[in-house]
Every structure is written in C-alpha cells, then in structure tokens.
C-alpha cells in the first residue's frame, strides 16, 4: 500500500515537473543567449493558458488546435516584448533590465485582470477528467498528455539548438556575442527568435497545464518563480539542466508535500535549492563557465 502511494506521488511529481521544465527552458534560453533575467516570463505562461481558453470558447476550435494557436500567438508577442522592452536597454545595467521585465510583468498581469475579468476560468479539455488507471496508479489523460507532449517538445528543442543553423547561431551568440556578430551573425535576429521560442514554450506549458486547475490572471507569478528555481538549480543557460532540474523539483515537492508537510512543500523545494547552490554554485548540470 505504501509503495503504491509512493509511486503515485512520484508520478504526480513527474507530471508537475514536466510543466516546470517547459517554463524553465524558455527562461534559461533567454538568460543564456541574451543574459536577461526575465521576470515577465510567467506572464507568457498565463497568456498561453488564457488564449487557449478564448480560442476554445470564442472560435470553437478543439483543444489541441486552441493550444497550438495560443502557443504561436504568444511566440509572436514574445518578439514584440523583446523589441520594445528589452532591446532599447541592451547596454544598461542588469538591474535596470530586470526592473523593465518586472514592469512588463505587472503590466501584463494587471492588464489581463482588467481585460479578462476576475472570474476564474476553466479550460475544458476532453482529456481532463478521464482518469486512466495504470495498475494501481491513477493518472488523468490530460496529465499523460502534459508529460508526453513536453517530452517530445523538449527533444525537438534539443535537436533545434544542436543541429540546425539557427540553433548553432544561438549557441554562438550565447558563448560570445561580439565574436558572433563579427562572423556575420545578425544577433538582433537571433535574440528575436530566441524570445519567440522561449515565450512559445511558456505558452505551451500554460495551455497544457491549464485543464488541471482553475485559471486566473495572477498565475504568472507562480510560474516564473518555479521557473527561476529550476533554472538556477539546473545551471543558468543549460537546457539539459532545466529538464533534469524541473523533474527533480517536481518529485521533491511531491514527496516533501506527501511525506513531510503539504504546507512546507514550497519551503522544502527551496531548501533543496539552497543545498544545491551551496554545494555547486553553478547548478547541478551546468557546463563550466571557463569554456566561454
């Protein structure tokens, strides 16, 4: 019996963790390529979920199409955000850029509260309530989809960065912006699509996770915090780190909440991070900075 509960908690943790992974990957890419700690990242998660809701209710498309539409739309918004809120500040102090992202985050969150209304929304997915029982374990189809879709997307992102021309340009810009510019890479262009990719991933996370809980305009602040924790734990700028860090955080929270105290779930997550950072300040999976 106890073994079943343990297994169930690990499954819960892995699913939640996969949501964190998608959020954190975008954050870590933006940090790696642009050196920006983007506080507004969580708002793109929120927008992804809300746009999915509106695509479902206003256009009447099915859930999968709505999720894709929302992801693409938010990716576009990401390009705009970079263009207007971050590019003008490229040469400024990092705290100034951080405050700009904080301002953007407040702007989107409060604007959303005004625009979407205070009533909680629910993204109706046909897979949300159907519980599949796999042996003694219970998982809803929606949660399986979160995990599977995120796994596929993460493989795609890895392939994109590693093997495509655009991905290699991102790597070059991340390692040495001036050098990359000298070899003829248009770093503005690279920054633009990095933002699009990052915001698209956050929106996809929102669209996937939305049917498991109610939706309200302030969920973004929650998302960005989880993202930060994962990014720092995994190693700033590392996609593999975001993947492993996200899954680890999900499972740790789930087990900590399940076996120690639910109220201390977040605190346990933070305690792990503190331990990790003190042991390996550059994060668990980061490549050494000296290779830069």
């Amino acid at each position: 019996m106890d073994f079943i509960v343990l297994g169930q908690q690990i499954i819960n943790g892995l699913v939640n963790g996969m949501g964190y992974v998608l959020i954190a990957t975008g954050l870590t890419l933006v940090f790696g390529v642009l050196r920006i700690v983007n506080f507004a990242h969580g708002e793109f998660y929120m927008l992804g979920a809300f746009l999915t809701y509106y695509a479902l209710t206003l256009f009447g498309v099915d859930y999968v199409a709505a999720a894709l539409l929302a992801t693409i739309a938010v990716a576009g918004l990401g390009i705009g955000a970079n263009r207007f809120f971050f590019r003008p500040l490229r040469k400024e102090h990092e705290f100034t850029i951080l405050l700009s992202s904080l301002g953007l985050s407040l702007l989107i969150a409060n604007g959303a509260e005004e625009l979407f209304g205070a009533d909680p929304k629910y993204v109706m997915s046909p897979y949300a309530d159907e519980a599949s029982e796999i042996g003694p374990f219970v998982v809803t189809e929606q949660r399986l989809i979160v995990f599977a879709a995120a796994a596929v997307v993460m493989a795609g992102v890895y392939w994109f960065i590693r093997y495509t021309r655009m991905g290699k340009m991102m790597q070059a810009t991340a390692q040495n912006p001036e050098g990359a510019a000298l070899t003829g890479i248009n770093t503005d262009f690279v920054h633009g699509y990095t933002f699009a990719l990052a915001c698209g991933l956050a929106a996809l996370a929102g669209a996937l996770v939305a049917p498991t809980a109610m939706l309200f305009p302030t969920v973004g602040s929650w998302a960005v915090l989880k993202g930060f924790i994962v990014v720092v734990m995994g190693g700033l700028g590392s996609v593999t780190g975001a993947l492993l860090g996200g899954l680890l955080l999900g499972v740790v929270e789930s087990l900590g909440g399940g076996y120690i105290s639910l109220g201390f779930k977040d605190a346990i997550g933070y305690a792990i991070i503190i331990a990790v950072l003190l042991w390996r300040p550059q994060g668990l999976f980061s490549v050494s900075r000296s290779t830069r």
Partner: protein
Amino acid sequence: MLNRRITVAALAAATAIGLALSPAAAQQKPPVKIAAIAPLSGAGAFDGQLAVEGMKAMAEVINQRGGILGGRKIELVTYDDKGTPEEGVSAAKRAMEQDNVDMIVGGWFSAVALAQKEVTRDKIINVMTSSQHPNVTEQGHKYLFRLNATSTMMSDTYSKFICDKMKVKSVAFITINDDYGRLEVENYKKLLASCNIEVKGNEFYNRDDTDFTTALTKLKALNPDAIYVSAINTSQGATIYRQIRQTAFKGTIIASAGNMNPKLIELSGPALEGVYCVSLFAPDSQNSSLKQWMTQYKKDFKNEPSFIGSLGAQAVQVLAEAADKAGSSRDYDKIAQTLKSRKWDTLLGQISFTDKGQAMQNIYLVQVKNKQIVSVASGS
C-alpha cells in the same frame, strides 16, 4: 466584460435622461455614502466582485424606491482590500478620513475583519459580512455588527446532518491554512467524534496553491468514506473538487459551509453533482425581497447571484432600513440601538442581532441537483 460596460453605460445614460426629465429636485439631497471594502484584486478578486455586485444591486433596488431618509440615495464607494489585513486597515482609514463615508461594509475574510474592526471601533457603524471567526464579535464593540453565522454556528448545524443523514463512518479534511480553516477542523473533530465518525486526517493548503494532487493522493490513501473540503475562495474550491475527481476518489464529497455558488458549480463540473452544503442563501426561496434583488442583479451583471452577493445585499438592506428608522445616517448610537432592538425582514429571511452585534440567521441545507442549488430542509 465589454457587454457589461455597454449595459452600465446604457443604464447610466437612461438614468441621466430620466433625471433630466423628472421635475422633482429630490436629487439635491446628499447621498448616504456606504463604503464597500472587499478583495478586488489577488486570489479573492472574484468573490470580492460578487460581493460588490450584490451590494450594488441592492442599492439600486432601494434607490429606485426613492432612497431613504426622505429621498437620499445610497452611494457605494468601493475599496480594494486585496484580502490582506494591512490593506483592509488602510482602506477603512481612507473611507473614514478622506472620503467621509457614513457607514462601512467589509470584512469578507476573518483576518481582514479582525484587523479592520480595531480601526473603526467606536467611531463608525461597521458591518462585517462573510467572515466566520467567532472573535470578530466576541468583544462586542458598540458599532460593530456581523452578518454571517459564525463557523461554530454553521458546524453545529452541519454536523448534525452529517451524523444523522450522510451514512459515512470516516472523514478526511482538506483545509485552508487560516483562522477559518483551522477553526473548522477543530470544531468538526469534536462534533463528529461525538457521533462516532472517525476523522482520518487533515491537510492544510495555502491561499495561493493551485495543485492539490499531492494532498489528495495522501488523503485518498487513508481510505476515508468522505472528504470534507474547506474552501471559501471559488477558484481554489473548484480546483479541489475537480482534482478530487481526477484522483479517482469514489467516496462522498462534503462542501464547506457557505461557499456554494453557481460559478463554483459551473467550474467544478460533474464533481459537485449531489454534493450537500449549508448556506444562508437558498436561491429557490420564495422571499419577495430576494426575488426583487435577484431580478435587479441579473439585469445589471453577467454573473449569477451568489451567497456572497446576497450577504453584501443584506448588509446594504439592513443599514439602509436602520438608518431610515433611526432618522439619521450619522447618529451611530441610535442606529446601533435600532439595529439591536428589533427583527429585520431581509432578503435572506428574518434576522435579529445579539447585544454583541452578531446576526442570528436562518441556516439552510442545500444540495446541488442538476447544476442547481436547491434547499433540502431548513435548519435552526
């Protein structure tokens, strides 16, 4: 959202034309200002919105009848307390010192009410609404009133029903970590033990949590016959009910007192069908003042009338009538004395106030049937 704007604009325009045409100069009299302090942003924003809408609809009903005190209209001034005590205190200060309101309605959350009552103490009539903590009225400040039944009153009624009718042998609790949730668990542990229902466990969650699968997995593993959900916030409540179903819990769900509303039913989906709850608000009641209010509410707002809205409406109704009978909106000794001296026919039925300002209300047992809230039997 947009539709509501247009409706509001249209209403305003219609009123303006109506006023311009009406020959009487009743408008010369100053309005009676009532402060509506509610959570309008953050986690409790939706419930705050429902509350304020309920108050506005009732103010409209009264104003259409010609207002109070010989033609003075009621004007609501809204403040956002963000659900936090500090903001509640600031809002009350602003209402009293800057906007010079006549009376205050607030205290939707207990923590806010407990802090706010110290600022308004003995200075202004202050009606607390949905907060359930006994301490709000325990000391009995002379201008302080509270409408909702205390959680102790609620759980006394509800536990009798759970013991006698529900046929459950064991219950597990998922509870919000605040004074309301903590007090509920304490009460039920005692009350249910007295009729041999075993309390198998309790998990506290926080006001900003969105995922409850960890807690529910843990509770489900205890194998209780029923899970009691203590949640006031609509969005969190709906998430919990949905996730109970998603974890394939097959037992009974018991909904906490007072938070049943149409939006919650809509959001929770099939999980809430057949679930019982105790409430002061039974939408199918035949009370004429309730019907009038509900008609006005549905005309002005896109949301459905809810418990929390009806409580706001009751606050406005009682204050308006009391001020009218006392013959003043500022003579607080007289208004307080009037409030305590008689019974009041409100949209939620007849109520009276104790010496400490606590309202004695009817408590209904309601059930969700075919996505509607229907009353089952009247309680005390």
